[in-house]
């Protein structure tokens, strides 16, 4: 595998082999747009017309009471439901198994007295001493999210300015931001489609995707900037081809960083949630895993073609491309002559 990837990397570097990121940009960008439309449509369909209803919001957004049962004698959800109903007959109960001897029981908002009674009933039912109860006001998650959205806005604005300054063109900044939007929308769409719970921890995950997605894009754009700025008048490649070569030359690096970033995240996801049971870890890592994969994908397939598209229309670049192509055609005709 290693030598295969190394060889692949060599070929990509020289241009011997090449993925036509720019050449087939209509396909890639069309795919991106289609995916984004689907990502927006899914919650509408699931929520039967109501966008918000398409998501499975965690208790932090719904509000309610939660009981965490550890060291339980069994993990039968029916027992838990029975225990809750013995105190509050008409309560809505959600039971999740956590690890091999834990349960998480979520109910509607209960009064303090009811909470104590339910905790007692659960202790009896599962023959355990450790039942942690929490109460979450419905505004809690919204509060965190509101702050997160504000942070998102400020970050995007600052990052756009920073990138425009660093790359000395707002077009790279714009392409990176659009690719980032693509990542976020699709990740959110994945959450809607799969019905994964959206919790504040998942929101943290979304926010981290921003950092990673931009990170990946900056690395590739840096190479693009390097290659295109060194294009002389006598360049044998069109602008798009130069961008494409840069994206290809950094492809192996992209794959490697993507894999390396995803590995620990996947480890948290599978160990932390399915085996051991820690909600925060699961929620963060799920968002991150989805985001890392999409973020790595979007750099060459969305950001690079977008950038090439933005630049190709510039008179100077268009003129040079025309010259390059003419020369190529000339040498072709010379060859066939």
């Amino acid at each position, binding site marked *: 595998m*290693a*030598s295969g990837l190394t*060889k692949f*990397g060599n070929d990509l*570097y*020289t*241009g011997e082999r*090449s993925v*036509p990121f720019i050449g087939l940009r209509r396909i890639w960008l069309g795919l991106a747009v289609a995916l984004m439309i689907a990502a927006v449509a899914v919650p509408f369909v699931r929520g039967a017309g109501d966008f918000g209803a398409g998501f499975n919001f965690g208790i*932090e957004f719904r509000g309610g009471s939660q009981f*965490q049962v*550890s*060291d339980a004698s069994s993990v039968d959800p029916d027992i838990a439901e029975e225990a809750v109903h013995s105190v509050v007959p008409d309560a809505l109960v959600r039971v999740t198994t956590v690890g091999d001897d834990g349960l998480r029981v979520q109910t509607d908002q209960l009064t*303090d007295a009811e909470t104590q009674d339910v905790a007692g009933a659960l202790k009896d039912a599962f023959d355990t001493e*450790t039942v942690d*109860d*929490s*109460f*979450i*006001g419905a505004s809690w998650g919204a*509060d*965190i999210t509101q*702050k*997160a959205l504000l*942070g998102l806005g400020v970050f995007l604005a600052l990052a756009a300015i*920073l*990138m425009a300054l660093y790359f000395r063109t707002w077009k790279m900044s714009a392409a990176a931001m659009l690719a980032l939007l693509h990542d976020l929308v699709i990740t959110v769409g994945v959450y809607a489609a799969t019905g994964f719970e959206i919790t*504040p*921890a998942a929101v*943290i995950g979304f*926010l*981290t995707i921003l*950092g*990673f997605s931009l*990170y990946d894009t*900056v*690395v590739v754009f*840096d190479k693009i900037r*390097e290659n295109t700025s*060194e294009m*002389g008048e*006598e360049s044998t490649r069109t602008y798009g081809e130069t961008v494409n070569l840069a994206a290809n030359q950094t492809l192996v690096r992209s794959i490697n*960083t993507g894999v*390396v*970033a*995803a*590995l*620990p995240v996947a*480890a*948290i996801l599978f160990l*932390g949630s399915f085996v*051991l049971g820690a909600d*925060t*870890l699961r929620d*963060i890592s799920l968002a*991150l895993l989805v985001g890392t994969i999409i973020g790595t994908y979007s750099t060459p397939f969305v950001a690079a073609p977008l950038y090439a598209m933005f630049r190709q229309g510039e008179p100077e670049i268009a003129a040079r491309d025309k010259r390059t192509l003419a*020369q190529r055609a000339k*040498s072709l005709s*010379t*060859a066939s002559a």
Partner: protein
Amino acid sequence: MATSSTPVRKAWRSLGWLAAIIAVLLGIQTAGALFWGWGWTPKLALDLEGGTRVVLAAQLAEGQEVTQEQLNQAVSIIRQRVDASGVSEAEISTQGANNIEVLIPGPLDPETQERLQSSSKLEFRPVILAGTPSTDAVGDDGTETPAPTDEAAEPDVEPTEPAATPNPEPTDASDPNWVSAEIQKAYDDFRCDQIDEVEANLAPADKPLITCDDTGQIKYVLGPVEVDGADITDAFSGQRQGSGGVNTGEWVVNLRFNDKGGAAFKDIGNRLIGLDPPRNQFAAVLDGRVITAPRVLGVTDQPEISGSFTQETSTALAQQLKFGALPVSFEVQTRDSVSPTLGSSQLQSGLLAGLVGLILVVIYSFFQYRALASVTIASIVVAAVLTYLVIAILSWREGYRLSLAGVAGLIVAIGFTVDSFIVYFERIRDELRDGRGLTGAVEAGWKRALRTIYAAKGVNLLSAVVLAIIAVGSVKGFALTLGITVVIDVLVVVLFTHPMLQLLATTRFFSSGHPLSGLDPTALGAVYRGRAEFRVSAAARRSGAGREAERRQTIAERKAAEAAALDATTAKPARTETPARPPQKKKSGSKKGKR
């Protein structure tokens, strides 16, 4: 190209700096552990250690805003309440613009929760008895404190029920008959520093109350509640207007009541003004403590409290009277308790997940980079040591606590940290592909990689900083760990990874391009092309001089390129995305010229 000795010397110098940084951090941590009672492990947040977290949200009317000052005031009042309930080591802090977070180690007993939740109660009661527990004192709010009727109480008091019915039946709220033998006994025994333990200051509204003032200097027996704090419509401080509208410069607190409160207050005035001290005083009782007990000097429904106020003290009293103890009322938004068992199992989950993630990354690195992966691993170890020390020091000095979200941030950081090594290694490989020797490739690759790493990590750091400043709660903890690791990552790449490669580049194993070194030029495809066929030289592409040389050669090159293109088209149609190879021959010329 520099001689090999310079990079080696630079490498050792960088490593020296790194050692110095680690030594300083280690020194701080050791000193902390020896002299300041620090522990060697970072303090853990509630979700890992167990405990209860209560988030109180300010209840605001539409358009109303709570100032940071009000929030801080609320924090100190809530801190008093929590401390008073005997909970030690509670952490109370503002969170965001209108929340207060209370962290309590261990479970939350119902009484403490009641204290937190209850919006404070303000009531007006007439004074029946007043006295100093120890020495004579003058009330700090300017009311004359009557001579103590009683001397200091004995040290140990039993919790008392002050609510016993006195005999004979009292006729009004100021009637000394409220003071039954039991009450008198309780009052005699009462000590202000025990006010919270005996809970004597919690009495029903229609019963007398034994309590102290909020500085613990005067103790009182108060009659039943006559005016409720809810009847106050406004309280404000201002300077007294003397006769003829002259500003006397004396600070006073003005009270305004609704109709019911105003009428009731007038009645108190009428009754109290004819009584002897201390019964001519009425007390404003907040959460069971007397915040002020002025004498009645006149009968009004718009009282004015005077005394030796400053602007600050009058404003503070006005605020207390207006809002109850808290400048705004609060509601429990979230209550979350985690048992220590659950906490430690969460920590274990996190650590195990981190370990497995680390092992996976290491395995993948070995697959990809062979012996070079050992540099990755060593770098991760150095980064881990630095991160651990920084987090430990932060936690003991700045009160940072490692939460589960923080642990997740650290695990995620493993991947992000290794990413920058990959960026660097791939750059070196690119340079090797261009036909450089290893020492040269390391230096040239480094220069370009560093730029990329700075830019990319800059974006990462930006996201962490913005989140840490704006976000609240667990998001903040996560952003902080991520930010710390980004900085450490850059530090490690500059001061460790690069110097190590500089040193390794001089060893035979790596410089000879051993197949297992991960830097084998053959495997990287560098040797398959003859020297004349090397790809665009990095140096030539980058350096201005090189480009200058290229430009001068334009005509010759163009001819060469045309000739080459001719070759190319016979081999391969030119119209492909793949740039035709042979035209690049021209550039090898410029490169040769430069070297």
